[in-house]
């Protein structure tokens, strides 16, 4: 073989590796980016569909409610993280199905007349939107308790802030009668940085003519630049990656079949005489945030700003922070799940609620209620899911109703 032939043979073999790796990269990259938009709907977090607040209310062409059948299912969002069916069955509960009605804006609401004046509207994350059948939803339970129609505008799966933005989008400030906004979100979402980022969004959103009291800011361009900052991408890209979820599933399988261990994102909370309950690893992680990382003062300041922002639009805010399941049942957290051999920090809700009180923000303190209910033997959350069940929703609704009547009393 001449040297030239040998070199070209080497090159041909080298080409094999380069082609295979290149193809692999192209497939993984292409698939991941495609699924990021198609499945994770990442564009909804970076593109804010905001329209300027209208001068006059636009009447919808037709006011139709659609029916949607939600089938019954076994298992919740936590039990679904267990990849082995036999193991998963141990923790699953049966969740009833129901037929739900969606109003023209796409939210689950008991059918109402288009001329209905809602003086209370419920916003928040998946906890405020949870509940099947519809009569178990926070807004419906509250409505039954208070004897008046209550509008549900809670948005599941997008955290505490999206629903507030959508409400502002939909509403027409100024020409509406004053409304109470009941804003509920889970404890582990409370952090100074997240709330401060939302305040920045609001500042970009505000319209100058309608709210002269609010500091001026340029109108929203649609693109949330904050979502494309390196710090956000560092977190957002792996979290919206299909490859990452496949890797996690694979690793869970390896951990289980290799070492009989459940995925680290699940905690098993066992109480004597009770079937085991699942907890969320990420919630436990948030319970190890140092005070500096949590930055409660900034979170409180941000909520005060939000209160003022909404007040300038004739909206009166009531805050409902929902206790973490892992805090209510913290004595059941296994020692092996402790980080660095130390127990997690105590609940931040007392400090958060206290901070809001001292700033005059109406807030519902659910921690004592939930702890008392637990002591009575009531279960407030699903066993196989991060969310609260009917009992939890009902308890919260009772507290909210109490606060609302207190606020309305002359």
């Amino acid at each position, binding site marked *: 073989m001449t040297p030239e032939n040998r070199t070209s043979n080497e090159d041909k073999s080298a080409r094999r590796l*380069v082609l295979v*790796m290149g193809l692999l990269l192209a497939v993984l990259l292409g698939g991941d980016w495609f699924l990021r938009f198609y499945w994770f709907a990442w564009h909804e977090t970076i593109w804010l569909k905001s329209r300027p607040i209208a001068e006059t209310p636009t009447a919808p062409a037709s006011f139709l409610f659609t029916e949607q059948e939600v089938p019954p*299912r076994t298992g919740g*969002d936590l039990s679904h993280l267990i990849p082995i069916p036999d193991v998963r069955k141990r923790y699953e509960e049966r969740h009833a199905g129901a037929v739900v009605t969606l109003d023209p804006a796409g939210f689950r609401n008991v059918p109402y007349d288009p001329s209905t004046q809602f003086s209370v509207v419920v916003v928040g994350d*998946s906890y405020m939107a949870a509940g099947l059948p519809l009569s178990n939803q926070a807004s419906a339970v509250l409505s039954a308790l208070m004897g008046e129609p209550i509008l549900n505008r809670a948005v599941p799966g997008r955290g505490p802030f999206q629903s507030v933005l959508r409400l502002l989008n939909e509403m027409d400030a100024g020409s509406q009668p004053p409304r109470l906004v009941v804003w509920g979100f889970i404890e582990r979402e409370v952090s100074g940085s997240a709330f401060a980022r939302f305040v920045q969004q609001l500042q970009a959103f505000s319209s100058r003519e309608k709210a002269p009291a609010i500091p001026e800011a340029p109108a929203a361009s649609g693109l949330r630049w904050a979502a494309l900052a390196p710090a956000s991408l560092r977190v957002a890209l*792996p979290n919206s*990656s299909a490859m990452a979820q496949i890797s996690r599933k694979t690793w869970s399988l390896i951990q289980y079949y290799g070492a009989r261990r459940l995925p680290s994102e699940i905690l098993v909370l066992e109480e004597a005489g009770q079937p085991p309950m699942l907890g969320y690893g990420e919630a436990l992680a948030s319970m190890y945030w140092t005070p500096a990382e949590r930055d409660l003062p900034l979170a409180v300041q941000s909520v005060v700003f939000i209160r003022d922002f909404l007040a300038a639009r004739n909206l009166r805010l009531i805050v409902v922070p929902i206790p973490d399941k892992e805090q209510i049942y913290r004595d059941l957290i296994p020692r092996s799940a402790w980080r660095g051999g130390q127990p997690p920090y105590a609940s931040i809700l007392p400090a958060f609620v206290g901070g809001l009180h001292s700033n005059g923000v109406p807030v519902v303190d659910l921690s004592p209620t939930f702890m008392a209910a637990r002591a009575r033997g009531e279960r407030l959350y699903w066993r196989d899911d991060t969310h609260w069940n009917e009992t939890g929703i009902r308890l919260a609704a009772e507290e909210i109703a109490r606060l609302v009547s207190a606020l309305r009393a002359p």
Partner: protein
Amino acid sequence: MLFNSYEFLFLLLPLTLLGYYVVLPKSWRLYFLTVVSYIFYGWWDYRFCGLMLLTTVINYVSALGVARAVTPLGRRSWLYFCVGSGLAILGFFKYYGLFAHTANGLAGWIAGAPLPILPELQLILPIGISFYTFHSMSYVIDVYRGAVQPTRNFISFACFVSLFTQLVAGPIIRYRDLAAQLMARTHTLQKAALGLAFFTLGMAKKLLLADGVSPVVASCFGVAQPDFITAWTGVLSYTMQIYFDFSGYSDMAVGLGYLFGFEIMQNFHSPYKAVSITDFWRRWHISLSTWLRDYLYIPLGGSRGGTLLTYRNLVLTMLLGGLWHGANWTFVLWGAYHGFILALERMTGCAEASRARGFRRAGTFVLVMVGWVFFRSANLEEAGRLLSGMFGVNGWGNWVDLRDLAGGYLLALLALATVLVFVAPNTWQLKWTWSRGQVAALVVLILACVGAMLVNTSSPFLYFQF
């Protein structure tokens, strides 16, 4: 940015390869690489870029000043200006905290009460400042010595200082090694394949081996009073962790360099197979030890001033080399430890002996492990705690407790890592034929690495079912 992150592997690197090979004209390549390197670096904190640019400009101008100066005094002034400013910037950001803390401690001890005489500033340490400061200083010193011609091409110099392949964790590259390559380099399939192989192996070493044993390190070092077995297991795991982490990163840097046509020097050559500490420093972080030799040891006098001066130079060089690693007295102690052993070996001449290699290899390995205790400990108390455990002060301990502490699988991984380090060839010694088997192995490895990286950096997706 880190090499093992989503945004690098699936955003910056593909775009860079696309721009470099497909989209942009060849004459733009250097500009492009420089811009990409600044994006890579500024991803952490855009303010870091300004400092690096300042260092680049100072060194570029100083080198031209040295070359153009007529008098020896003029040339020396430019050199002092450059080295002085580089060390001042490095010293301020990296060592001010240590200096202030120590000074305040001493003042308080003398005065009998806390007496902060220097404000303790909260400084963010710009990542990689030690590396790019050394990169650029070596250039001006070489110009002063006449070893290399200064460049008029600012972009070429800026690219050299900031090149993302070795900016953050080395190898420390001399300008003269890269100068010709910056202007003209070949891009062959063979190089690309080598690059991919090095990158894959480096990532595997770092993510699978180093990160794999790191929980063992944390567990063992966290024990309040470690017994003999726990202490030595902890130190052994750290020995493995630091080697696979650092050499893995160097391999990734070399691999990325090859992908863009650069041939970068070898930084590690099976250091734990060394037969003496002298030999160890010819195999560990080779780019740093040669840099220290050429720019610190030899200017101090090297071995030309007689035995006592030689020892002084050895200890001093190693001490400063230790300090370079981090602003902590433990690093200085580590450096001094190695310096003294080097002097001792020179004194007894045992570095030159050629008998009992296996025994000397084992002995050197133990000496290196003891050194790592200082390197890893956050302070002298921790080092003392571990050393007393290693010398049996807290008893022997037992294997069952160790397995409970560290986990059976991880201990098996540690054993595998140890065997590899002594028995297997290092990444530079592998013969690449690009057979189907080798390609398949590399593909499996890189998939495992990407999976591990994604599991570590992502959160579970709670699919909302309602």
